[in-house]
């Protein structure tokens, strides 16, 4: 009997010693890629709440993608929802939205400075998109401000009030154009673009635009601002009085502030006179298309530069300013992301495996 008891107790003891000591490691991409100016940074936002944003580098010469260089250099993950990056001077400036911080990195990915952003009462402000102008960085945040930061001491400077949920922003004619989105909690200044004069750092104007300007905003070669307003994603429900408002490319004249709706668009990138467009409206069946719009001719010049069957689930589009290659990210439910690279003649060049929810390719030169 006592033997049995002993056996039972030893079993329990054995079980007790099996304390687990497994280690998680992060391994995507090539460990031997060297950082240079001949390359591009890939922002993978990661999945919400999973702290798995990542930063990778594409070596354009050898056509290889690195591992997560932030993790490699700093022994930790960059955080939750790595929203945007701005390559400026010798540094990288990153906004991490859910982790509510701005980070200054060396081009290698090594952390220089990290600023946790909260308001006076400790609430996180969720920085969103970031851009640069004449030695300063400007980023939007969900406290309804555009914040500024210098590039010497990396200190936060003044901030200026815009809409409740400001998103993408761009600089044109010495002014910031800030998308004020139609976030469902937004009360003030939604569906508009705020104009901030960078000389005085004052909000000088609010431009009404098509419903829900969101994460796309750029200044094209013609000096004008181009944004995407998502509308209601094409929802058509006449019985309930809902008319479809499609996702639309909107031109804002940077001098006169006149707005023009150009064509349907969801994600945009531009080089010279050409706008590269991904269009995909949730409520419009089979709406996925890849098209080009010529800004000088005011016309769609190619309806399908890639077939929608060839590349499903696109998430972002960027164009290499030097060589004209087109970088389209693909984010499929549950899977790691990919970057598809096409030549300016729309021939597939290569693909790269990247982190979750890739959202931007930022060129290093």
């Amino acid at each position: 009997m006592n033997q049995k008891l002993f056996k039972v107790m030893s079993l329990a003891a054995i079980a007790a010693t099996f304390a687990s000591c497994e280690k998680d490691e992060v391994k995507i991409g090539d460990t031997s890629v060297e950082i240079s100016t001949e390359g591009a940074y890939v922002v993978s936002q990661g999945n919400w709440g999973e702290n798995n944003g990542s930063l990778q580098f594409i070596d354009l010469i050898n056509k290889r993608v690195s591992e997560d260089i932030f993790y490699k250099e700093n022994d930790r993950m960059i955080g939750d929802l790595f929203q945007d990056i701005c390559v400026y001077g010798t540094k990288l400036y990153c906004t991490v939205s859910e982790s509510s911080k701005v980070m200054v990195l060396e081009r290698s990915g090594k952390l220089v400075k990290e600023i946790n952003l909260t308001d006076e009462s400790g609430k996180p402000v969720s920085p969103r998109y970031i851009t640069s102008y004449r030695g300063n960085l400007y980023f939007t945040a969900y406290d309804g401000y555009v914040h500024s930061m210098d590039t010497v001491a990396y200190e936060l400077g003044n901030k200026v009030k815009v809409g409740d949920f400001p998103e993408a922003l761009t600089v044109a004619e010495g002014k910031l154009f800030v998308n004020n989105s139609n976030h469902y909690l937004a009360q003030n200044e939604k569906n508009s673009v705020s104009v901030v004069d960078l000389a005085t750092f004052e909000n000088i104007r609010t431009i009404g635009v098509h419903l829900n300007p969101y994460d796309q905003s750029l200044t094209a070669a013609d000096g004008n601002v181009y944004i995407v307003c998502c509308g209601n994603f094409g929802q058509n429900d006449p019985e309930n009085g809902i008319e479809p408002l499609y996702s639309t490319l909107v031109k804002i004249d940077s001098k006169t502030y006149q707005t023009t709706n150009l064509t349907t668009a969801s994600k945009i990138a531009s080089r010279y006179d050409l706008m590269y467009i991904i269009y995909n409206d949730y409520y419009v069946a089979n709406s996925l298309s890849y098209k080009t719009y010529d800004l000088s001719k005011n016309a769609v010049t190619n309806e399908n530069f890639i077939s929608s069957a060839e590349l499903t689930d696109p998430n972002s589009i960027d164009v290499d300013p030097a060589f004209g290659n087109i970088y389209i990210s693909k984010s499929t439910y549950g899977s790691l992301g990919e970057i598809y690279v096409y030549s300016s003649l729309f021939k597939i060049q290569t693909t790269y495996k990247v982190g979750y929810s890739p959202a931007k390719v930022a060129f290093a030169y």
Partner: protein
Amino acid sequence: MSNHKNNHYGIRTGIISVLALCSSSQIYALEAYDENDVQAPYVASSSDSQSNYSSSVKESTETLSLTEIAEERVLDNVTVKAKKRTNLTSGSPMQILGEELLSNISSPSLSDAVKRFSGAMVKDYGGIGGLKTINVRSMGSEHTGVCYDGVAISNCQSGQIDLSNFSLNNVSQLSLSIGQNDDIFQPAKVHASAAVLFIETKRPELSKEKPVYMSLSYRGGSYKLHNPSVLFAQRISQGFMYSVYADYIKSDGEYPFTYKNGNTLVDGTRTNSDIESLKSEINLYGNIGKRQTLNAKVYALFSERGLPGGIIYDNPYSAERLGDRNYFVHLNYENEITEKFSLRSAAKANYSWNKYTDVQVHSTTDNRFEQYEGYATLSALYSPWEALSFSVSQDIVYNYLESNIPDYVYPERYTSLSAFSAKYSDRRLTITATLLNTFIKEKLKSSNQPDDRKRLSPSFSISYKPFDVTNLRIRASYKDIFRVPTFNDMYYKVVGNTSLKPETSKQVNAGITWIGQPFEFMEYLNFTADIYYNVVDDKIVAFPTSFIWKMMNVSKVKTRGADFNVSTGINITKHINIGITGAYSYMDARDKTDRNSDLWDNQIPYTPLHSGNAMVVIENPILNFGYSLVASSHRYSSNMNIAQNRIPGYYDHSLWIDRTINIGSHSLLLRADAINLSDKNYEVIRFYPMPGRNYRFSITYKY
């Protein structure tokens, strides 16, 4: 043995009256007699031992002793305690945790007991206030129904029942039925889930001699836990009694944790993890004559808690709060009209209210939801011959959800469930078959009405005892069922999708059960083993499409698994007993959505390949000692099985001691627990570290 058999039939009428007192689930007690020949030897020994480990033998043994006192009890029906079921004859897996085993789990939450079931994972977000839902055989929380004292509990808003809203202090029996339910005399709703968790509350035994029962208990512990509870019962008259129960919990829930972001240590304290809740109920139990019973329950829950959220690197802010109010009334009426024909009916009115608040820099959220439910069921059981019975059951459910969210659609849902069942049962063979018809109609405030839903769901099971000499049973079952999209799936702001199809599940199970006394020193040894295969299709998930997230019917999951349960009781001396229970689950749950996807054949999130638990209890007159283990192999937090998504496996060890002091009819139980001895902040859900080593003590006075 033949003596027992005679007994069995001889007092059958009496038994049925006894059974009819309780919820329909007691029909199992009757089936237990098939196993009498094996149970007989244990009657004597079990009367000596203070406790048993929920084993079926104990269940059955008590049923047996029930036969002896049944007639006496029928005379004064108030005293009936019979709350026993057995998993032995069941054609599909039925695991039972009886009062004795439950008393070994000292936790304010029911979820710590549910972790003892093989094949069931509790999604535990950590802390006493954290959300805890049950996921059986990787089919998803929405596929498990919960039945509280015979009446289904539902949540039309999210489809998930939060187990932390139920107190373990008041539970006398917890059972989990997977697949086809053998008890055909049940509300149709019991047949409408892939698995059902039955919660049976305590019902003290009263008599003319002892007309009052009282239990006062206080539990305290780490993280400023205070958990007093009281159960009071009184006999009103011949055939009638009532009970009052109240359970209060308060804890600040602030526990320290260590966590690693890569190789960087994140030290922190769980904040906004406090809870304060009060659960209370009043029960009335009555017998009208010998053939009718009427039970009524009034239930109220108040709860206020913080939702700490997952760890977000570099941002410890957390301000989400959840308030719950839940009130319901239910009535249960049963009438054994003739020996061959019985009726049972139940009705329930339920109101629940919840309030979610969050304070962020840009806005303050205050979302309120109110659920209204009306439910009625009527079942008839007809047994033309000894071995054959038929049942028909009709349920009607009405659900309505209100919210203060702007432009809310105010959905109403009418559900009709009709079940037709047949059962054949003799000493060797039990066969049951059920056909369930579901009809659902929904109405919205806006003009766009979703389509009606209709579906027929078949299920059947068979259990066979091949040999006379050994108490081995072979079983097999099949069930085809579905879960309808919840109101959140269909109407939640932005992500809701009204065109969702039901999420279907098909289950096949085969297994053996065995009970016996292989060695002299063993009181009994009980063993069950099952292998299963299930397919969940059209799984409803939040799916990103065209740059926005929507609820979609996208994925398909195939699971191959095996569950093993073993329990034994060993008498070392007349006064020293050891009880051991163990459960092991193997669960190979793969994504079978798209062969060309990276996710094809990956283990689905939050399903460990191996998991198990064990409990050893050593009882003696001086100090009882217990050890418990809950263990799991690694899991993945996301669909892709890469290192980044891997959550390490864990072992959670606990130890306790207890001592009962009896003075006349008063008893005092003192107990101390040390929980999670290895002090690891392991994760069940990624970024929700569990509390490290913590302590509890409790004192219970009973009269």
